[in-house]
């Protein structure tokens, strides 16, 4: 239980290096996504295939969300946001495959993804508003609030990581507990719920990224 709950297991060893399941399954997720991208890329036709429709629907939807939030062209942010959504969604779902664990059920993965957002916010902010313009928003409306602004930056990154990790890990833990006390088919309804919560978590992570980015990018309109 302990092994399954909070700490990643070592899957195999490459010489002195212990390869945790998290790393291996993240690579599987990446391979799945790259395969999907290649499939769509080389299948581009005027008569659209199902895969192409799925990919375009996803990107269109997230771009629509971004267009509402940024009130400008969302193109520069599409790669980051859609990649995060796709990676987290696939990672959450891969945990349902027999013998595999969701990479996001390990705090390291969730923390790494949140760190990406943590670094992307000042990157896009400075690119859109300049160094001076970006750092001035820390001093608005009054410099007295500077400590709170800095704490906000860190606490929301922590919240982003813990939210993803906690949701996915608790879902897996509940399924494991139910499997150990009740038997083979009892966790199936919960696994269906896990499909839903996994995708919703990916969506929420992407939307929160958009919210943070738009707060950093948008110049004050007054």
């Amino acid at each position: 239980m302990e092994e399954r709950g909070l700490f990643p297991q070592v899957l195999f060893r490459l010489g002195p290096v212990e390869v945790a399941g998290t790393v291996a399954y993240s690579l599987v997720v990446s391979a799945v996504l790259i395969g999907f991208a290649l499939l769509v890329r080389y299948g581009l036709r005027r008569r659209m295939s199902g895969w192409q429709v799925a990919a375009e629907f996803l990107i269109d939807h997230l771009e629509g969300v971004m267009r509402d939030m940024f009130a400008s062209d969302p193109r520069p942010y599409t790669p980051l946001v859609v990649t995060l959504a796709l990676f987290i969604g696939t990672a959450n779902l891969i945990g349902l495959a027999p013998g595999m664990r969701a990479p996001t059920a390990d705090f390291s993965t969730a923390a790494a993804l949140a760190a990406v957002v943590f670094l992307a916010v000042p990157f896009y902010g400075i690119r859109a508003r300049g160094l001076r313009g970006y750092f001035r928003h820390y001093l608005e409306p009054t410099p007295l609030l500077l400590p709170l602004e800095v704490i906000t930056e860190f606490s929301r990154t922590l919240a982003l990581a813990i939210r993803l990790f906690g949701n996915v890990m608790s879902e897996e833990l509940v399924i494991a507990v139910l499997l150990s006390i009740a038997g083979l088919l009892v966790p199936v309804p919960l696994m269906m719920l896990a499909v839903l919560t996994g995708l919703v978590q990916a969506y929420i992570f992407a939307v929160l990224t958009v919210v943070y980015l738009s707060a950093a990018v948008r110049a004050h309109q007054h």
Partner: protein
Amino acid sequence: MDTHTIFALVVMGTAALVVAAGTIVPGLSQGKAINTAMDAIARQPDASDRISRTLFVGLAMIESLAIYCLVIALILLFANPFSHMFER
């Protein structure tokens, strides 16, 4: 009862209390949020896209409170930093 048993009992009781309190309050507030969003959608069905998106983000924020409690309970149970002081 030796100190180890008392420690285990206290930790288990605390973890149960943390999870209980940490689900009741976010549960109530999530219900309130959904209630208000439903009212808003019923009044303005055109804005349902925007309302439900904001609702999802808000629910995620509230949900993370419950998740904090769960993580703290699990740390208490499985990764307690003080458990070595009560080894048998």
